Every structure is written in structure tokens, then in C-alpha cells.
């Protein structure tokens, strides 16, 4: 299945792209995607403790099963001004 990963803020600055399209196996979970992003962009220094998973703008978890055309973001914790 095809999904999209959106990069924001620091992640966009490091990857230099707004969004990438990826092909994943049909039973892929967020954790599988996370590992792939870690391998592809090691400079992101991603840690599961440091980010929140967002799928189609809804917060989610590493165990969540992905669906075709999902849009995934890994967000920092935002505490406000």
C-alpha cells in the first residue's frame, strides 16, 4: 500500500522535503514505518519518547495498523508559549 509521510519544522529542515510517498506491506504498522524513516533519515535522531504519531491529523500509536493513503506525521511535544 502507498502512504505519505509529512515532515514539519525541524524534520522538514533536515530532510529537505515536505512529504514523501512510500510503499509498505499491507499489514504494516506505524512502528514499521518509524524504523524505515529512522534508517532513511538517520540525521533526524528520532526517538519514540520524543515524538507523537499523527495519522490523518489524529493522534495515534506505534502499534496502529496503517491504511492505504494514510498521511503520517511525527510531531514534537508542543507545550505552548
Amino acid at each position, binding site marked *: 500500500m502507498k502512504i505519505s509521510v509529512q515532515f514539519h519544522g525541524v524534520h522538514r529542515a533536515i530532510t529537505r522535503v515536505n512529504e514523501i510517498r512510500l510503499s509498505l506491506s499491507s499489514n504494516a504498522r506505524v512502528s514499521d514505518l518509524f524504523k524505515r524513516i529512522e534508517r532513511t533519515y538517520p540525521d533526524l535522531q528520532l*526517538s519514540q519518547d520524543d515524538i507523537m504519531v499523527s495519522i490523518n*491529523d489524529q493522534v495515534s500509536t506505534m502499534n496502529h495498523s496503517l491504511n492505504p493513503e494514510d498521511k503520517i506525521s511525527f510531531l514534537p*511535544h508542543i507545550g*505552548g*508559549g
Partner: protein
Amino acid sequence: MKIIESVTYTPQPINQGYTDQILRVDLTSPTLSTSTLSPNYKTKYTGGRGYALQLIWDETSETTHYDSPENILVMASGPLGNEPRFPGSGKFIVGTISPLTDTFIDSNVGGHFAPLLKSAGFDALAVSGISQEDVVLIVDADQEQIRIVEAPTFGDQIDNGALSYGDALLKLFNSGKLSENVAAVSTGIGASNTRYGILNSLFYDSRRGRLRSKQAGRGGTGTVMRHKGLRAVIVRSGLHTVGGNNPADEKGVKRAGASLKKVIAQVDPKQFRLRSWGTPILIEYMDKYHILPVNNYQYGQHPDAKAIFADVFFDRYLSKKLPDGCYKGCNLACAKGAENITLRYGPKAGTKVGVDGPEYETAGAVTCMGIFDPGFIMEYNWYCDEYGLDTISMGVTASFLMECFQRSYLSKDEVGYELSWGDIACANRLLHETAFGEGFGKICSRGVLRAKEWVAERYSKKTGKPYTEVIGELGKFAMEAKGLEFSMYITKESLAQQGGYGFALKGPQHDEAWLIFIDQVYNELPTFKMKAEALKWFPLIRTWFNAVGLCKLPWIDVRHPEAANTDNPAKNLPTLEYYVQYLNATTGSEKTLQDVLDDSERLHLLQKLINLRHGKGTRESDRIPLRAMGPVFFNEYEARADYYDKWLQDQLGDKKMPDEPESRHALIRKLREEAYDKLCDEVYEAKGYTQNAVPLLETVDNFDLLDQQAQNLLTMFGVQRRKLSN
């Protein structure tokens, strides 16, 4: 400079974070006096905001307004300010009775002023009275002298500007040179002509070779200062800063500071890059989740927003090799700056200036007017600072008037020109007219609450509609509560943040509670009870920073890696431990985090009592406009119809949604208002208040605040001591 009054004094040394001295200035007489605070004072009121609250509570009354001679303008740091080994220790608060809210306002600001004031011997400066002529106050520890002098003049071009005037004044005072040992606060012409004048905190940055400024922006503190005839305050002290607090435990201070700095260095580069980009990094995330105010908070997202993302400012304007902390030693250094920005508009068009900013809030104030031009944001930032205007209140008032124009409550004849969304020329004209008190700017200068009343009166006369009906309609999209303009976050989809704004004692400013992401995005507060608990806990800890002289950003926006392993990661408790360690190491106390929260709760209650005294303390004052709760008009609903329909269906469960979109929209509005009412019930109970938002007598008594004034006040609101049942 002609001396009007002066006294000599011996600067008292700082001991464990305090000098225990207050400088009192009465500008009417005029007189200067210093006095020693009792040992109980710091125990009970902590410092900073606590000192300001106590002075306002004890020495003003319900008849005191912003322009009353007895109103006091307090500037105070706190025991933890003035320590470069700990990040963010240059903060102080400015507290007074506000021209916008007519009750207590405090606004925090960074820079060198507070550390220098403390090293010059004072925990607090309290200014009352009104001078008949413009004066400058000088606190000179090097000369061991305090003076009130006639405010020098340098010509209108300089005298009208808070930045220009401060620069000229400091050079005149310090033999033509700017120095890190001299700082000032100043106001500009906008503070004379509006109710939302700011106080600029000016300090010399040797790396940039110019004065930089930070702002006490909210609530019109600069307007009060200007009304008192106080043009500026200068403080000079050559005393040392590192270790200057003379802490109880030097090593403990060093250890706590090093721990926090390490976390910042580790986390910020991969989390927000506040050190490089500053707070504009929030723009992108707020836009993504429909939280960035657009067209007076009608919408929360805009396709042009990417034109003002943080990297745009960084690439185009910001100085890249200069960390811009507002005080020494802060390695978060989020205050950004830019050099050689050529102004395009206004009376100084063509001039190259240095801009301190922009902050997220300033950018949000501009998008609120429908403008997404980064150059205009830089320019708006500079002019507001120069004129002494709060970027938030200016932008929100202008946006409200633009919507009045959009919805035909105002006409071109009344304004003098068209008020249009996204029109830089129009926004720019309104900005300058407001600062100088000219044309339609006279209306904008009043702030949203009073502008709303003006529009309602005229529209009512014009159309024959009852005034109450018109003001009710305008009130749905007039973004103020308690008289203060909302800061720059859309709360429609976060009930917790609706409370964060509604219950904020000073009015809707986010520094008391910012719960949008943990509520709306992360969904960590699914129940009313959880929201209520958060709405008690976060305001207590967040406002504690304003009592001790510290910046809260290293806690809020740098999530400790260990926080994920705690029960409530959003509280970032591992970082708060460093703050408690720093407090104890400085003051010699043995406090826990709960003690800190209790100290803060006392101040929270004291502020609540002041609000009650000034008619801003009951449930009615916690009401927020419908725009803050949901889509007021059909166009707002239509813009996100799928989202709103899904939300409505979730609420209704198995029940069928109305067929007509107009009916669905009306039902959403009704449910949102009911939810806010229910939230009020829960929060008041959690805080120990009656359902009319009045603290119970026992609640006040528990914090040793039940003096005669408090008793009388509570009795007036029908609160009696509960009788014990047998």
C-alpha cells in the same frame, strides 16, 4: 538632566536571592523612599507577581482605576532572577491596574533591567502618583543615588518612539556610550494614545552593538506608566551577576543550572530549534491543526501560511550566527533579532532598523488581519515596539473592526477607508493612526471591548435595532474576555483551552494555561474531570515562574527525555525537579513541588480576590465569546463542514443528525455552549469555589489570606464559613 528629587542610598547586598528592599516612588509629591520588607513578606508572597499583587491588594481599592493616582506600577523580579548559570533568569513582571480590564494585570518581560535592579539593591520598584511633567527615574547603584529628573527631549522623531527615546536617553545618561551595566524601561507615543501601551525593556547587546528590546506587552502597563508621566526608568549597576544572588548552596545552583542546560542542548536542536528559529516555529504547527488565527479567528488555517513559516524568517531576516537570549547564560536563547531591515511604510519608510523578533504572537496578530507577508510582520513588529503598542491587542482590535466592516456593522464613511482582510495598506494605515491617536485609530486605540461598544451604539442609532441586541451579536465575535484581547490561538476545538482562556485571571492570555495540544491534538484530557484538573494544575505552575523571576519556556517547550516515563508527560516533571532544586539551593529552603504549587495557589487566590473586588471575579466574567467555542457564522461551519458533521455525529451517538446544514450548525453552537458551562462547574469545584466562581471562605483561609478586606468581600458575595454538621 535637571534633578527634581534625589536621595542617596547604600545598595543592600543580595542574600539567598533577596535584598528584602523595596524602592517606593510617589510621583505626585514627588518623593523617593526605600524600605525593608518584613521576613514574612517573601515567605508569603514569594516575589515578582506576588509582591505586585500584595501591594495592589493592600494599597488600592475598588475605586482605583488605571489612571487613579493611587494606582501602583510595580516592577519586580524574584529570588531566582539574576543568575546566568540557570537558563532564563532575566525575567521580571510589571503589575498594575489595567486600562483594558480595570483589574490587576501582570505582564512578564526579559532583559537586563530586573537583574540590574536587584543588584542595585531592590527586589521591587513601586511607582504611585502622577507627575505633572514627564520625568525619568534613575536608580544608580554606582553613584549610590536615586533621582527623579525632568525627561529630556530630543525632537519628535525620537521622543515619540520607545526604542529611539531609550537609545538617546541611555547615551545621554552614560556619557554617550551604551553599556551592559545600564538598562532601561521606556514607553512610546502609542502608550499615550491607546489602552494597550507596552513597556519596553531595553538592554545593550555588545555582539550586535545596539540596544535590544523585550516587551511587557499585555494589558496596558505602558499606558499606566505614560499616564503617570514616567517616560522611562534607568538602572545602572556594575555589580557582578554570576553568583550575585549569594545563594545558600553554590554547588546546588551550579548543578541545577547545568542539568537544565544539558537537556536544552540535547533536545532543542531536534525538537523545535527555538535557539535558531525562535517561537515562529509554532506557526507551522498551529496552521496544520487549525489553530492559527485568520480573519479574526474565523479560520485556523490558510494556504498562504507557509510564506511565514519559521524557516522563512530564518533564511530571509534573522541574524544566523548570534544567539539572542534576552539574558546572559540562557542557552535556549529564543528571542530572535534581525539587522538592517528597511521599513517600507509609515513615517520612517526607507529607514534601516534592527528588529527584535518576531514572536509567534506577533505573526499571529498579523495573520488575524488576513496578512501573510513576512516583511510586513517584521515591520509591524518594529513599529509596535517603537510606538509602544501591544502587537496582540493592536492586531486583534484591528481584526475585530475588519470583521465589523465585512459584516456591514461599519461603513467606509465611518472608517474613512475600506477595512479589508489581507490589505497591508489598510492595516498599516490603521496601525499608524492608532499610535498617533488620529482618525479611525481613535476607535482602534480603545481595545476590542470599548470598540465593540462604540460600534454597537452607532449601529443601533443607524438601524433602530436595540443596543442590547446589537452588542449581543457583536459579542459573539469580539475576541476579548474581562476586557483583554485573546492571544493568538484558536480554541474552537479545544474545550480545555477555552477554559484556559476563560478562567485566566488577567483575561485570555495563554501564560496561565496552554492546553490546546494535549487536549485537541494528543487527546490526553478526554473527560471533564481531567480537563478541570489540568485547569487547576497548569495555571499554578505556569504563573509560579512570574513570581520567582524566571522564564518558563525551558520547561514548557523542551520536553525532558525522561518525561515519557512519567505518569503525565505533559507536566514535564523531570525538568521541574531542576527548578525546585534551584529554588532550594538559592533560598536555602527545603521545598517540594507541592510546596511550590501551594505558594502559587496563594497568589492565584489573591489575584482572584482582587478580581472580585474590581467586578471581574464571578462566573459572568469567565464567559468567553461564542467565536472561542465554535463556528459563529455559517461560513466558519462551511469551511470545515465534514469535520464539524463528524464531531456532531460523535456527540449524538446513535441519534440522527439534522438534515439541514444550518440546523447542524445551530446544534453545534448549542452543544459547545453547554459544554463550556459544564466545564465551569467542574473547574470551580476543583478550585474550591462556589458555582459563581467565588472562592469558599475555607479556601481563602487555608492560604492565610482571610484578612478583613477579604472577609468583607466574600460576605458581599454571599460566601459564609460552612457550618460543621454534627
